[in-house]
């Protein structure tokens, strides 16, 4: 009779075979030393796995636990980038985009009113602020 496969012996060890298979396997084990040896070796592996102890590194676990909780909870409370940050960023961008006005040729001679340049910039900034506030409201 052909020897029993290791997988089948493993299922035999766990009582997971169908009832009909047991008599055949038992009678084969009575006459086959090789299969008996393998079955005993599987029992050794099973015993070792059953008695496998995991050493718990208590101090390291505690240190890691405290640091993981602190860092995870702090990250929850931080606001990396909010609407107000976006608003400030956009305002700065628009301010920079209108700063070219002071370099317009003849801007200083266009109008004798000394504050025209300042007024022009200020008006443009006011207009831009108004636009951005509307955007903020929409968002």
């Amino acid at each position, binding site marked *: 009779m052909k020897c029993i496969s290791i*997988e089948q012996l*493993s*299922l035999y060890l766990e009582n997971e075979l169908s009832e009909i298979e047991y008599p055949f396997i038992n009678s084969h084990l009575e006459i086959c030393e090789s299969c008996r040896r393998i079955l005993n070796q599987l029992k050794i*592996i099973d015993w070792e796995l*059953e008695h496998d102890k*995991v050493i718990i590194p208590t101090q390291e676990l505690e240190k890691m636990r405290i640091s*993981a*909780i602190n860092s*995870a909870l702090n990250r929850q409370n931080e606001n990396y980038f909010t609407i107000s940050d976006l608003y400030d960023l956009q305002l700065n961008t628009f301010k920079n985009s209108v700063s070219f006005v002071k370099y317009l040729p003849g801007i200083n001679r266009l109008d004798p009113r000394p504050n025209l340049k300042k007024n022009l910039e200020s008006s443009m900034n006011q207009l831009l602020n108004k636009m951005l506030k509307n955007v903020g409201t929409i968002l």
Partner: protein
Amino acid sequence: MDISVSLIRQCKEMNNDAFNTLFKQYEHFVYRICYGYVRNKEEALDITQEVYIKIIKSIQNFDESKPFLPWLRKITVNTSLNYIRDNQKHAAASLCYINKDTPSFPSLTPAISIEGQVIANSFKTLLDDSINNLPDNYRIVITLRYLEDMKYKEIADLLEQPLGSVKSTISRARAMLHKELSALGLLEV
């Protein structure tokens, strides 16, 4: 023993002490599964930390009227399975202490002497290395079956696999361990 509903509610309020109490109660459980899967202390600590962070991020989704342990177990198992190992950290199986003078020993010998303890520790290390060489799915099933003492049906439900598949995984894993350990001469009977 499961934890109280009020502790979970405090955790949902992102209370630092509540999380500390919660994790302290379950850290052995989490670590054991992680270690059983990777067989390496540093990696097991890494995975445990990832589990903690996942729990903190998803505690709001947890229904406190249900038991906490199965939910924790599922997160731990999934985090372990998704863990990408840094190959440099992964210890290769070391056979340096197996030489011609090393006796073949039956592993059931109680380690009452120093020599016995050294031999037992060596076997444990070799067993760890052999388990490490198993495919991912085999390792998690072995861990849940032997370290967590779970029944086949429970393992099948947790991993969402058919029952027959779990049974054949265990027997194939044993067959692979048998092949490795007998090649090292450690199963002489």
